């Protein structure tokens, strides 16, 4: 039998008990006497005084408004953009600023002078057709400062001349001794590695080479495009049809002038029929239009390009460290797929490691990055060893407590590096004078100014120089 206290408690329960002040429930005396289970109180309550509404705030006093939703104060009420619009906005490449002054003394590069040694230490303009081609292979990056100047122009620094030398070596090699030069670009953050890659592509375009550029290795391995196992491959390799088709369309668009003049001379067996007397541009376009056949067509295109008598090739990749590890794709038994098992990457890697050479000569370039690089201890170690071998210094020893990726070390065993360092003061001066001539730097560019900016930029780091001169401090 329940106790009397319990019964009394039960009788005092009211439907709207929660509306009482908290003290009321604790103090039995102040509890209003209402009959149990009655709805009369709510029914006969004053209809004007709504629940939860106290007296209106005094005139002139500020009240705290913590409402959420439509009537909340200070809310961004703008319409939301359409799907894809934001990313397009973020990835937009702007290559011209109509407000910037036109530099009268700016000379253009052309086919004859692009490899010349005399260009060193000068800012030179890029011709329009090359700009279009570079845009097609996505060589321009959003982080670079192209959008501030009237038209794209680039500084020929010491490292650029080195790359020009390499290209000249490839071109001047005689028949039968064609060279495949492999280089990995290393250097500090913002020191101009991607820009140097762009300059190499630019020279290749101007010298009528065929350019194959993988603009960002990250896009290949982050599993944003479809993949499928390659039939009859052991160990299993994986093709990326959509990505390969996009790459083929880039190749076709960027190298249009060269590929149009190269007829198909082999008789490739392709899933899609090729019209007779077609050229390589048509071949690439068919691959771009049919993603399911893109990998065989890429192979056929490559076989065509490596036939004797074809132009030299340049093969480039940016963000190297992304492919030196497991990709984000999963195999059928839910194991991560190593990036080297993706067909496109294994194709590139076989050229970077020197396993396959380019019969018509060519350049294989890979740029590392320090802004967005997943850690790959094997790659870092291999590149450090290569750097010490090339530029001197004590060769480091492998830390035995780190996991070694044998596939990576075997690829990068005998690769050479090209270090992108800081600008010299003369180069910095030339760049700052170009900024001033474009109207971006206001004020006199004299020795003191150059020295100040050069020092602030960490002894001539190219990106930092741009930052201190025209970006952060206007």
């Amino acid at each position: 039998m329940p106790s009397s206290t319990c019964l009394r408690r039960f009788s005092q329960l009211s439907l709207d008990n929660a509306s009482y002040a908290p003290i009321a429930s604790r103090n039995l005396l102040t509890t209003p006497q209402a009959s149990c289970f009655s709805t009369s109180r709510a029914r006969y309550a004053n209809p004007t005084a709504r629940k939860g509404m106290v007296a209106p705030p005094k005139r002139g006093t500020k009240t705290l408004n913590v409402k959420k939703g439509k009537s909340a104060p200070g809310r961004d009420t703008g319409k939301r953009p359409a799907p894809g619009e934001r990313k397009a906005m973020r990835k937009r490449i702007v290559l011209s600023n109509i407000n910037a002054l036109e530099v009268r003394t700016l000379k253009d590069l052309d086919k004859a002078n692009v490899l010349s040694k005399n260009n060193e230490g000068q800012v030179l303009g890029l011709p329009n057709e090359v700009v279009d081609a570079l845009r097609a292979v996505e060589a321009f990056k959003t982080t670079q400062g192209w959008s501030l100047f009237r038209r794209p122009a680039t500084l020929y620094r010491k490292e650029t001349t080195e790359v020009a030398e390499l290209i000249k070596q490839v071109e001047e090699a005689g028949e039968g001794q064609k060279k495949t030069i492999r280089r990995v670009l290393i250097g500090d953050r913002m020191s101009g590695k991607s820009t140097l890659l762009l300059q190499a592509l630019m020279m290749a375009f101007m010298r009528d080479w065929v350019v194959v550029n993988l603009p960002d290795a990250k896009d290949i391995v982050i599993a944003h495009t479809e993949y499928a196992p390659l039939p009859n491959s052991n160990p299993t390799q994986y093709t990326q049809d959509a990505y390969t088709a996009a790459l083929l369309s880039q190749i076709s668009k960027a190298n249009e002038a060269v590929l149009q003049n190269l007829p198909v001379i082999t008789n490739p067996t392709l899933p899609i029929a090729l019209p007779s007397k077609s050229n390589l541009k048509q071949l690439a376009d068919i691959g771009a239009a049919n993603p399911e056949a893109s990998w065989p067509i890429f192979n056929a295109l490559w076989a065509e390009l490596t036939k004797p008598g074809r132009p030299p090739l340049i093969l480039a990749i940016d963000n190297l460290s992304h492919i030196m590890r497991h990709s984000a794709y999963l195999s059928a038994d839910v194991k991560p797929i190593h990036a080297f098992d993706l067909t496109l990457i294994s194709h590139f890697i076989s050229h970077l490691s020197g396993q396959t050479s380019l019969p018509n000569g060519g350049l294989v370039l890979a740029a590392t990055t320090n802004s967005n690089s997943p850690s790959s201890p094997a790659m870092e170690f291999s590149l450090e060893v290569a750097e010490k071998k090339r530029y001197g210094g004590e060769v480091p020893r492998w830390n035995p407590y780190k996991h070694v990726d044998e596939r990576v070390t075997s690829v990068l065993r005998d690769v050479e590096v090209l270090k992108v360092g800081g600008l010299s003061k003369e180069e910095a001066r030339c760049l700052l004078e170009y900024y001033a001539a474009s109207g971006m730097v206001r004020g006199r560019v004299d020795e003191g100014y150059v020295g100040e900016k050069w020092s602030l930029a960490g002894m001539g780091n190219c990106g930092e120089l741009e930052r201190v001169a025209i970006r952060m401090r206007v």
Partner: protein
Amino acid sequence: MPPRLNILSFARSIPYRPKSQAQWHVQPTIRAAPSQSRAFSDPKDPPSTDRSTRIGSQPLPDVSEEAAKTAEIKGAQGPELEKGTPVGEVVKGDKAAQEKLPKIMQDALKSKMSASGPKGSRSYSTTTTPINSGSGVELGLVDFHLATSTPDVPGVKFGLPTLPIPRDANLKYRYDPVVDQVTNLLMRHGQLSVAQRNMSLILNHLRTAPVPTINPSRPLIPGAPPPSHLPLNPILYLTLAIDSVAPLLRIRSQKGAAGGGVALQIPVPLGQRQRRRTAVQWILAAATRRRHRGSGKGGFAQRIAEELISVVEGRSAVWERRHAVHKLGVAARANVVLPRKR
């Protein structure tokens, strides 16, 4: 279209003239500057003084000391004793005195007179030349050259600065005052560097945006430069936008002064900094209400920049706000309490 700026003043030759190696002079690794100050541990007197009491046994003072004493007697200013005696200058042109010099100084004099290089027969140099001059060797010390000539002001090692010292020479006042103020108003949660990045994005957006068209019904402040000059001077652009919409006054509500529980609206003039602050806050509020189109970090900066452009072009709602405040101020001008005239 006529050129917006004097282009010729900017056009300057780009080609780079390589510095010839001959200009590079070998600098000592340790830069020994002539010491201008004496350490506390130095003896008070030069070594030539003797502390013997008898005048006759004291050694004769050296040339400089003698000259100093003579000058003191004459009431003129003699040579400074702490710098040592410039023996070379003293014996200049005095053959007899030169013969009495120590051998090393005589050799130095002779070599200076003949003005020839080192005597050796080597055709090559044995000194090292830097690989790329000025990058590794100087370790970031900019323009650190040994003062070749003695400064004309004694006690100042690097010469006196030219006066007046520019305002932005101080670390704390290196930015333009408007830029500084707007940056601080942009700052949220004390994140100054984020605000600074936003500020630089705003200025870059102003630089790349097309030239604004001025609305004649919304005139900018008098003395504003033509709009074609604005994009290349983004700080001026920013200042112009802010100063143009800045209200001249604010309305202070004096409670109970009007009687009957109504607050009395009193217009109060604002100072320049306060005016700018009000304008920036209006602009920020208007920018927040704008449509956000992109993604990533630069969105807010872009909206603020667009709002600034629309202010200059007279499209912004901030102008209405300024107008309303001024109208209210005019209506309430009778409430202004002026100091009583005597």
